[in-house]
């Protein structure tokens, strides 16, 4: 028995876990910083319609967004549905320059693959949507995606 006790005495010193929290915190900060969504601040109300037959948008870097909906600040901007491009309200004529700009920002090889995602509030009338679609057709942005909520 004594033999065993002798062996037990030579214990490996425990690894200090004192720095573990710091490492984990570092990871947390890393995730907190990197997953900051690069989304624009919405100036229009956004409640997407529901649909079941959805497809995922494949390459997020190849998507440009057009938001349409009633302004969030109804007192200032009224309740008429507005188009938002990037961070500001836009008119229907601004869509073509916007798409051109989006194209310029991408590598040349990717330009034909550019998809326009239409994020449209469910109460918007189709008139405005049709106008936007006509503009997109004019400038050759044929790939579109109606953004929806996945429902049952």
């Amino acid at each position, binding site marked *: 028995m004594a033999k065993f006790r002798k062996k037990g005495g030579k214990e490996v010193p425990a690894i200090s*876990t*004192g720095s*573990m*929290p710091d490492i*984990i*915190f570092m*990871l*947390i900060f890393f*995730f*907190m910083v990197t*997953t900051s*969504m690069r989304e624009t601040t919405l100036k229009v109300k956004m409640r997407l*319609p*529901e*649909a*079941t*037959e*959805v*497809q*995922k*948008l494949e390459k*997020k870097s190849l*998507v440009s967004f057009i938001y349409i909906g009633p302004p969030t600040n109804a007192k200032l901007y009224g309740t008429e549905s507005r188009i938002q491009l990037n961070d500001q309200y836009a008119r229907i004529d601004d869509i073509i320059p916007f798409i051109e700009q989006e194209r310029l920002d991408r590598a040349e090889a990717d330009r034909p693959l550019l*998809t326009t*995602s*239409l994020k*449209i*509030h*469910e*109460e*918007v*009338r*189709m*008139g405005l*949507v*049709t106008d936007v*679609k*006509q503009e*997109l*057709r*004019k400038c*050759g*942005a*044929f*790939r*579109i*995606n*109606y*953004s*929806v909520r*996945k429902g049952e």
Partner: protein
Amino acid sequence: MARKKKKVPEINASSMADISFLLLIFFLVTTTMDTDSGITRRLPPPVENPDMDVKVKERNILNVMINKYDKLMVNGKPCDISELKDKTKVFITPNPNDEKSPEIEMKDIEFIGSFMTNKGVVSLKNDRGTSYQMYIAVQNELAKAFNELREEVAWRYFQQHYADMTDKDKIDAVNKAVPVRVSEAEPEEIK
């Protein structure tokens, strides 16, 4: 005067790691970027000559109209949205024995072979006053009809669910066998 200093017991920091792990996992889970999903469609190129109408035989068209009160009309008859999927499916399913259903075209498709494809086109018209919600609901029903048919073809020829297929060529084959032909009319006022 050697007073014994009272020792403050050290706080056990070993659970700190667990706490921060918990936080880490929380962030990992919650910051899933909301993956954008939606209904993908291709817009037609702008028409150069608006007066020139492409003539399509009447039996090859399924007219779907939505008015500004979000009411639906299919081939001139009022229709409820719950019936739309079935009607569309009947329309796009190749049916060589029926005079009234769309024409059939034999096509040679890789992996499938000779396949009867349907020449039918769903024509979708909406009013400027139609709500986007209704429009998407209709698009969704149409997509459902096409997807169901694709599923059937995928199952018949490849014994696979359409959604589970990974082989690009096979997916293309099914897509070719059941093309999504939804045409959206040039905007005009409908009563």
